[in-house]
């Protein structure tokens, strides 16, 4: 009844459109040799503009006119296939189509490898309605990328921020991570971290994924809060009645730590029943990595240098499953689940040389952090005669638990001098600074934090196919509700000595590395935190706690928030011969409430009070979206998109937690009235695909950001900013809206076999992409004063690199393949300082990786990977390139293993 009512309404609203009697053609497309599903294959009805493409599971759905019809199936690298059908009114026809490769190489044992992954990705990219890049699972395996962030760095226009050498956050077209929306199976996932929305993608093992989609232009059926782009991580689904088991085992070595690492993955998938109605897939993976870094940091303002010796143990556990049941070709339900757990035990042993204070600090931090992400999607797809209906409920949660964060610092009254003749390695002169007898306890801090973020989402989508003259089209309508709860709790205790606690030599341990920064600095014996804590526990009467510092830290950082999002969209997709037009509008309304605490510090620097605060805001957006694709030739597309989108502020900026420090005459305040960043995006792209599975593409993009968020200082302002002032004059630092930013750039990408080259060179293939972006952001000038508070500075957008690119050269012959990959991340502004002299930049970095594989037979393959061949450091500088403030080295690490596919 309901479905008829909806159909009638739409018929009434859209006069002039025709719904002839139709048949439903549903099917799957596979490789004829290895039965692999082929994603992104085009299926068209000959003589019409009725075209569709297979999804990530190689399945398609076509509403077709009745009678004698010819179905044409095309797939890059495979022979075109035409199937004749006689379709009757209201018939549901199920097809299983197998395609033959047009290249011998594809049908050989190597079909399991690189080229087929590339074909899957490029076919999906070619047939997508919007501008997107796809990394297929087979492609993920080509590069030695253990997590989703590192797999994404190979995509044009994507660069990543690393932590301890491993990729973590994703920047799309150089926009900071909060401008990129991250989803699992099409639905946003919450961030395990406390004060941000974006997700650290190093928590998700790459081998849990069937593919990764990076959408650079939006369509109305996608979430609108994506300015840079939208990343969708898709988990795997069972494909055939034959049990498929994939497994890999690898062991490796980290050259800096001189320790091994292990990795394993096991996947089982099978469709059961006579008609393969029930599918189940289980995937598990585990990665244990011992790593570290040698880090040198400098603070030019304070004339201080830090030597940091990092030791880390990281693990990644991934468990995912997909269970689906197809009642018949038109109705199915599914349950998808993903659980990932990333743990990070970090020991940071460091010296801080403070010549101005004639002090040297020495201490160790021992911290364990576990991030977990859980998503469960329960949904159904129904294909009725006149329309289809998809709906889904999702539960997802992100959790970051730090059960302990213990840091102990000793201090010695040893004078030191620092010389910067060689800015890369400052000269440090300090007599006897490695003698631990010189160091007395300064402070011990013991912390525990728990951040939780939970989403409950319900959504539906209705698709109504129609015909306009001889052109097929689709109207889509949908809605979504999402309820988010986010909270952060912290326990932090500080202890200082009230007695003669033994000097550091009583708690020392042997160094963990043979040398630090190539033997340039002698770190002596470091502090063992556990040894100190044993003493602390046995002698508590020698310590006093600092309840004031505890109260300030805990009150300032803890909060809880609720956010409800209501969204609806309407769109139409119309094919006009070679032109596809997709247009529509999305509406999103967000209602947010927060609870946090204000901290008031009096003129003498003492805590005066902690005041609970509750606040909230709401905002809404109408987001028109339009995309066109014109098929110049069978292999060449022109694309354009004009879209509106936005980005929600980070929780840390919007929660009303405040610190009013009357001693320093500075108040920092959250801004619950902060508006989201609005964006208008223009994209133009030309792409030419090669029949032998390759692509050459180039395009321009432009983004105009309104209400850009920046940190503003309101000099000598009354406080609070509204209502009765409690303080007449104080400098208030607050994230505010009001300024604009523009980003414009172009990107080019090429990937293909170099088979035109002579001799053995013909077995080479090249994968290359480059993105240039230019941005300007207008901010309140750092030189603004009370007399000219509206002075402005023009800067590059923080996080936005002008140059980003990849070059990967592969050799593939018979059963052997090898690849050397260069990933280039250009310099970018990392932190906006109080003055331009304080601006901090991250320097260019080129990482070189090598991987090779050998297929022993159709089931077994061995592989080897070496990362960071050239030992590229992570480097930051302040204001000018000669003023390096951080250099961090990781050395090389690698793996060797075996993969099994059955």
């Amino acid at each position: 009844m309901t479905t008829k009512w909806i159909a009638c309404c739409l018929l009434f609203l859209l006069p002039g459109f025709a719904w002839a009697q139709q048949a439903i053609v549903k099917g799957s497309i596979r490789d004829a040799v290895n039965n692999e599903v082929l994603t992104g294959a085009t299926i068209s009805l000959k003589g019409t503009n009725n075209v569709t493409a297979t999804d990530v599971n190689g399945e398609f759905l076509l509403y077709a006119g009745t009678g004698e019809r010819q179905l044409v199936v095309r797939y890059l690298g495979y022979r075109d296939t035409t199937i004749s059908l006689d379709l009757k009114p209201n018939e549901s026809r199920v097809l299983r189509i197998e395609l033959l490769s047009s290249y011998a190489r594809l049908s050989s044992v190597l079909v399991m490898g690189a080229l087929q992954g590339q074909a899957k990705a490029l076919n999906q990219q070619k047939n997508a309605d919007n501008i997107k890049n796809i990394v297929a699972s087979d492609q993920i395996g080509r590069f030695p990328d253990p997590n989703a962030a590192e797999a994404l760095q190979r995509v044009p226009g994507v660069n990543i921020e690393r932590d301890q050498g491993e990729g973590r956050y994703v920047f799309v077209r150089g926009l900071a991570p909060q401008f990129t929306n991250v989803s699992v199976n099409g639905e946003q996932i919450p961030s395990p971290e406390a004060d941000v929305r974006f997700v650290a993608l190093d928590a998700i093992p790459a081998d849990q994924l069937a593919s990764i989609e990076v959408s650079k232009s939006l369509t109305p059926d996608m979430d609108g809060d994506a300015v840079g782009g939208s990343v969708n991580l898709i988990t795997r689904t069972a494909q055939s009645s034959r049990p498929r088991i994939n497994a890999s085992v690898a062991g490796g070595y980290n050259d800096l730590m001189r320790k091994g690492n292990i990795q394993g993955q096991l996947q089982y998938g099978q469709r059961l029943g006579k008609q393969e109605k029930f599918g189940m897939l289980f995937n598990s993976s585990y990665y244990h990595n011992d790593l570290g870094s040698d880090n040198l940091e400098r603070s030019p303002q304070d004339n201080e240098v830090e030597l940091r010796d990092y030791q880390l143990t990281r693990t990644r556990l991934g468990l995912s499953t997909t269970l689906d049941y197809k009642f018949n070709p038109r109705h199915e339900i599914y349950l998808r689940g993903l659980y990932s757990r990333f743990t990070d035990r970090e020991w940071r042993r460091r010296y801080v040389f403070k010549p101005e204070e004639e002090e040297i600090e020495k201490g160790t931090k021992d911290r364990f952090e576990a991030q977990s992400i859980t998503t469960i999607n329960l949904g159904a797809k129904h294909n009725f005669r006149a329309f289809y209906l998809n709906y889904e409920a999702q539960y997802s949660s992100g959790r970051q638990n730090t059960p302990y964060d213990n840091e102990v610092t000793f201090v010695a009254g040893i004078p030191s001098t620092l010389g910067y003749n060689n800015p890369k390695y400052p000269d440090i002169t300090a007599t006897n600074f490695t003698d631990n007898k010189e160091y007395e306890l300064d402070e011990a801090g013991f912390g525990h934090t728990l951040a939780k973020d939970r989403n409950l989402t319900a959504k539906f989508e209705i698709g109504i196919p129609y015909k306009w003259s001889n052109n097929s089209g689709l109207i889509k309508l949908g809605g979504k509700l999402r309820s988010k709860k986010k909270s952060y709790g912290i326990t932090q205790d500080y202890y200082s000595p009230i007695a003669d606690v033994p000097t550091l030599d009583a708690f020392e341990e042997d160094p963990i590395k043979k040398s630090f920064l190539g033997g340039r600095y002698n770190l002596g014996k470091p502090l063992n935190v556990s040894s100190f804590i044993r003493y602390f526990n046995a002698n508590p009467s020698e310590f006093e706690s600092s309840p004031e510092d505890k109260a300030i830290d805990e009150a300032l950082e803890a909060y809880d928030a609720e956010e409800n999002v209501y969204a609806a969209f309407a769109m139409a997709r119309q094919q006009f011969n070679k032109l596809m037009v997709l247009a529509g509008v999305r509406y999103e309304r967000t209602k947010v409430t927060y609870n946090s605490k204000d901290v008031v510090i009096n003129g003498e620097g003492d805590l005066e009070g902690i005041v609970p605060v509750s606040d909230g805001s709401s905002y809404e957006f109408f987001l028109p979206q339009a995309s066109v694709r014109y098929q110049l030739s069978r292999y060449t597309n022109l694309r354009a998109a004009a879209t509106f989108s936005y980005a929600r502020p980070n929780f840390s900026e919007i929660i009303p937690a405040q610190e009013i420090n009357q001693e320093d005459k500075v108040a920092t305040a959250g801004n619950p009235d902060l508006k989201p960043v609005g964006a208008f995006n223009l994209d133009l792209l030309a792409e030419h695909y090669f029949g032998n599975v390759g692509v050459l593409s180039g395009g321009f993009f432009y983004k105009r950001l309104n209400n850009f968020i920046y940190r503003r200082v309101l000099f000598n302002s009354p406080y609070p900013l509204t209502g009765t002032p409690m303080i007449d004059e104080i400098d208030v630092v607050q994230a505010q809206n009001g300024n604009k930013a523009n980003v414009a750039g172009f990107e080019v990408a090429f990937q293909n076999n170099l088979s035109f080259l002579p001799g053995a060179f013909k077995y080479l293939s090249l994968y290359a992409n480059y993105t240039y972006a230019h941005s300007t952001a207008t901010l309140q000038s750092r030189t603004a004063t009370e007399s000219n508070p509206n002075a402005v500075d023009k800067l590059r957008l923080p996080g936005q690199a002008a140059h980003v690119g990849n070059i990967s050269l592969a050799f593939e012959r018979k059963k052997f393949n090898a690849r050397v990959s260069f990933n280039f991340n250009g310099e970018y502004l990392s932190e906006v300082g109080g003055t331009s002299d304080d601006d901090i930049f991250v320097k260019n970095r080129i990482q070189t990786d090598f991987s090779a594989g050998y297929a022993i037979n159709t089931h077994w393959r061995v592989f080897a990977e070496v990362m960071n061949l050239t030992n590229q450091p992570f480097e930051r500088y302040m204001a000018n390139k000669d003023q390096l403030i951080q250099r961090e080295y990781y050395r090389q690490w690698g793996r060797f293993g075996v993969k099994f596919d059955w």
Partner: protein
Amino acid sequence: MMKRSWLYIMLAAFFAPACDKENDDLVTPLSANAFPQIVVFDDEGDGGLEDEDAFSFKLTLLDRNDSTGKEPAGRIIPLKEAVTVNFKVIDFQGFSKIADYIKAVKALYEIDDCTTSEDKGIDVPVQFDVTTGIGSVSFPAGVEEVEVEFEVDEDLFDDKLFNTKKRELTFQLTGITGNNTQVQANKTAAFNYSIQDDEGIYGEWEVDHKNAAEFARFKALFGLVNEDIKNLQASEVDEIAVEFEYGEVKVVVKLVEEEDVEECGSVERKNKEIEIEASIEDLTDDELEGDVEFGEKLELDNSSIAEFVYKGTFKVTGKKLVIVLKGELDDEETSKVTLTLEK
């Protein structure tokens, strides 16, 4: 076989988190709740003039987090049960036997600003062996601090000579009686009581405010940090004293004008006073002349905090103290001012 392998690997994956080194070589520190109550001396030391007839030290508890949230900066959480705190004299100088100086001991605590346990006749058990220097005192439940007061021989050190040798006693806590892990004593910190020589700089010195030049110099010096002193007329002043005490300097201007002062329920007519207090940073107290430096934080009219410092030299000759000081407050400073004070 294949099924069994699958099972093994799934089990391995399930237990994989055990390999994350969460607990490797981990020692968990005492939590804030498990952290014991610590009994400490409330100060590192005190001092009194050589003719004092008593001295005392106070024992208190370290501040803890206030779970009620009323005092977020933390407060003393009184004990739920009384404990006995043991102490001893670990060192003494300037006399041969403790018994020569200490005559008796008592303990008390404040019930409110006007009432002590002694006033209410509450007995706080305390004992002190003048032979061994070992003592103990009960730290009652429900109180924030307990004071141990020693009655001493006021004539032992009261001579007419300037003594350059130290005369002092040092106490240390030795523990809590019983096996109470929830209350512990800080056994390394010490309390030092020093006997101050009133032939030296310690004690009260008077400024001759009737001497116009001397009064002007006094105003120029201390008017820097006190507007009332800056605007003072000699006719308004009854008496001006500069007191050198243990770790502290007090400048007290007693005005002619009187006011009613209520103290513990009784009203008394007293002279109004202007007072400046400052902590001694440096003082050559074992000689009759030397350096002096004292200072303190001060809230300015615009609510900001500034620190003032007075630095200079002094010379004691009999009952006369000549002190040469220069004051600094933020960017302001006085010229060098010489004051001549008398005992």
